[in-house]
């Protein structure tokens, strides 16, 4: 047992640092520093640079376009990208539907979709939740009825993240109304430009247009766009949920987040001293660092420990619970740290607007981010559902 990096690992670390320094887009960095909302082009800019380099999908098997990195190299990669504050990559293609397709898809599906996910040509969204089906996902009611070589899909999905940008969506639909709930579900890939699809924005607490409702009215989907067998979609769904949870600990990003909070608390004054010298605030930062270390070493144990390589198991629920709690506490501390200037509502730079927004740059998104990040304990299976998973799968209750 050791934490040493081999000479090869150190060389790799340097290669990653140099690559980011030379290739990360400067205008994207400026926008991040100003605390502006990111456009589709912003998200894709870094994606395309990584695709060109061949580094877009470290988690994928090499045969489908993965990097073949060791767990240590992947750890270095996530550390370095977080340290450099690189914009996060959209998970819907790379971390969600991609692995489902290369695990369960037909040769034709793999050949068509996987390269387009890697290149960023297709933007994906996730059609899972419905107004009546949140934590009880298997109760979903969107139907797909066979009609020749097509399904006719009808229903409503919700909380569909960034569907306004999406070219394709992966949907859970009911193909057998009479079967037991989980057994009548299929996994469909749907072209978001299909007639009958309507995407309507839902504006969240921070003012962001991040999620949507998606309505499907008599949408025609070729059977060839079903992944895996009919009525076996729940298998894909469970596989995807476990995959979704692995990166979700967000250790490297939270480390970077704590550095940002500390920087704010060294700048903000509390009396004649920096806020970070306030014993109560300092203790909250320290507790967060300690909890993050516990999360980091729990993740490292699962990445490079005796069970490494077995793929994500139910223990990934632990990483999701603790990781999301830490992300929320970080945003709480940021908002607390900025004091009065959490209140001004920064709606981004309007057309021809070059007036500097109110308050310090680091305060602009403190409150909206705090509001927004309440989502992390709700999405991907709420933290209560994660506890149910651990109770059942790990504790055997």
């Amino acid at each position, binding site marked *: 047992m050791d934490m040493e990096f081999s000479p090869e690992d150190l060389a790799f670390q340097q290669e990653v640092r140099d690559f980011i320094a030379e290739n990360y887009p400067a205008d994207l960095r400026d926008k991040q520093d100003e605390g502006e909302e990111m456009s589709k082009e912003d998200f894709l800019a870094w994606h395309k640079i990584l695709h060109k380099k061949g580094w877009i999908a470290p988690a994928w098997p090499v045969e489908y376009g993965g990097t073949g990195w060791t767990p240590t190299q992947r750890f270095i990669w996530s550390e370095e990208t977080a340290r450099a504050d690189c914009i996060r990559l959209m998970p819907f293609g790379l971390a969600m539907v991609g692995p489902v397709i290369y695990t369960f898809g037909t040769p034709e599906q793999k050949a068509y979709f996987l390269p387009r996910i890697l290149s960023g040509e297709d933007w994906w969204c996730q059609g899972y939740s419905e107004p009546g089906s949140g934590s009880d996902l298997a109760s979903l009611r969107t139907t797909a009825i066979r009609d020749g070589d097509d399904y006719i899909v009808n229903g409503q999905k919700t909380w569909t993240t960034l569907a306004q940008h999406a070219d394709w969506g992966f949907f859970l639909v009911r193909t057998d109304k009479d079967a037991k709930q989980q057994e009548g579900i299929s996994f469909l890939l749907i072209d978001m430009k299909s007639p009958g699809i309507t995407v309507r924005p839902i504006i969240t607490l921070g003012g962001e247009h991040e999620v949507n409702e998606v309505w499907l009215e008599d949408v025609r989907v070729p059977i060839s766009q079903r992944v895996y067998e009919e009525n076996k979609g729940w298998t894909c769904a469970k596989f995807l949920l476990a995959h979704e949870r692995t990166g979700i600990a967000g250790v490297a990003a939270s480390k970077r987040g704590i550095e940002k909070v500390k920087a704010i608390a060294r700048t903000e004054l509390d009396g004649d001293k920096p806020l970070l010298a306030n014993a109560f605030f300092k203790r909250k930062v320290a507790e967060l660092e300690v909890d993050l270390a516990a999360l980091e*070493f729990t993740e490292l144990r699962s990445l490079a420990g005796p069970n490494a390589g077995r793929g994500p198991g139910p223990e990934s629920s632990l990483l999701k619970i603790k990781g999301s709690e830490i992300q929320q506490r970080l945003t709480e501390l940021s908002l607390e740290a900025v004091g009065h200037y959490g209140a001004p509502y920064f709606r981004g730079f309007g057309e021809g607007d070059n007036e500097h927004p109110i308050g310090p740059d680091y305060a602009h998104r403190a409150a909206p981010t705090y509001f927004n990040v309440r989502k992390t304990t709700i999405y991907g299976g709420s933290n209560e559902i994660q*506890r149910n998973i651990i109770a059942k799968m790990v504790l055997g209750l």
Partner: protein
Amino acid sequence: MDFTYTETQDMIRDTLARFLSDTYDFETRQKFINSDSGRDPAIWTALAQELGMLGAPFAEEHGGLGGGALENAIVMEELGKVIGIEPYLPTVVIAGGALKAVGGAQADAMIPEIIAGNAIIAFAYAEPQGRYDLANLRTTAKKDGAGYVLNGHKGVVYAAPWATHLLVTARTGGGQRDREGVSLFLIDANLPGIVRRDYPTVDGSRASEIYFENVAIPGDALLGGEGTGLPLVEQIVDDATVAVCAEATGVMQKLHEGTLEYTQQRKQFGVPIAKFQVLQHRMVDMFMEVEQARSMTIMGVLKLDLPANERMAAVSAAKAKVARGAKFVGQNAIQTHGGIGITQELAIGHYFKRATMIEGQFGSHDYHMDRYERIVLAD
């Protein structure tokens, strides 16, 4: 980067676990901790001579298994699982650690005695006024010819009633709380002038108040430099702190498993209480604390060799987290058991008592958070 155990490490764990499951069941333990001496010396002898376990962290040239802090953690975790009262911590981890650090003739003479099971060494470092400050010492060692004369009072010295030797911190100079002037001595436990008041501890062990009344000790009892011993004391206490984190992990795992088992047997409202979601989620929260205690122990082990500041920050982070987790798991194990949990009848309460004492051992949560902040979050 590698978080796996070697075959030898797996073997140490398996061998010890098998031995303890044969010899250290709860009823047997209760019998010997309530006996006059408070222990069964045959177990210590077997650990040494049949299992070679007391050599786990020592070099092969001393007759050890060639391990280090990770091997200590493995042994301590297994002892935690049976709430073992064997004096492995003060003898092997602490005194053994000090001897390994100073090396030379003292190590050559004493380490084989530890490995053979002939020496039991208690660590006399705490004083009534000192709380967790290792430098806050009123005990003095005054130079007297080639040796020293020891005077003072050491408090709550675990395993002292059983000890053949004492590892003692004392002032050879400086003021009561100075970093300079601290020295470390390894002395015979039965020297004239050593007065002990022995007592049982709440967690099943034995300890003593020790009074040194003009105790003449030889010059070669000094480990390391005279008056410059504090960094060594800090280092061995950090080793010990990580070792009790490992022990806590074992204790917490058993508290959690015992609770899982009990809730599946105990019926109320016509069903096993494990069916209730409020209890299921609590047991998941306990599980997460156990896993994080294990992670923090490993972090502590891996960072013990770093420069002092990084080592201390890591050890304090580990101990702070484990202390909170031990409290959470212990209290909820008792709560979930209900009335039977607060009796002496079941093992669970005895695990809770040990978990509770570990919380404060070598520094409370607050003490370690303070130390962490002084190092990592200095203004």
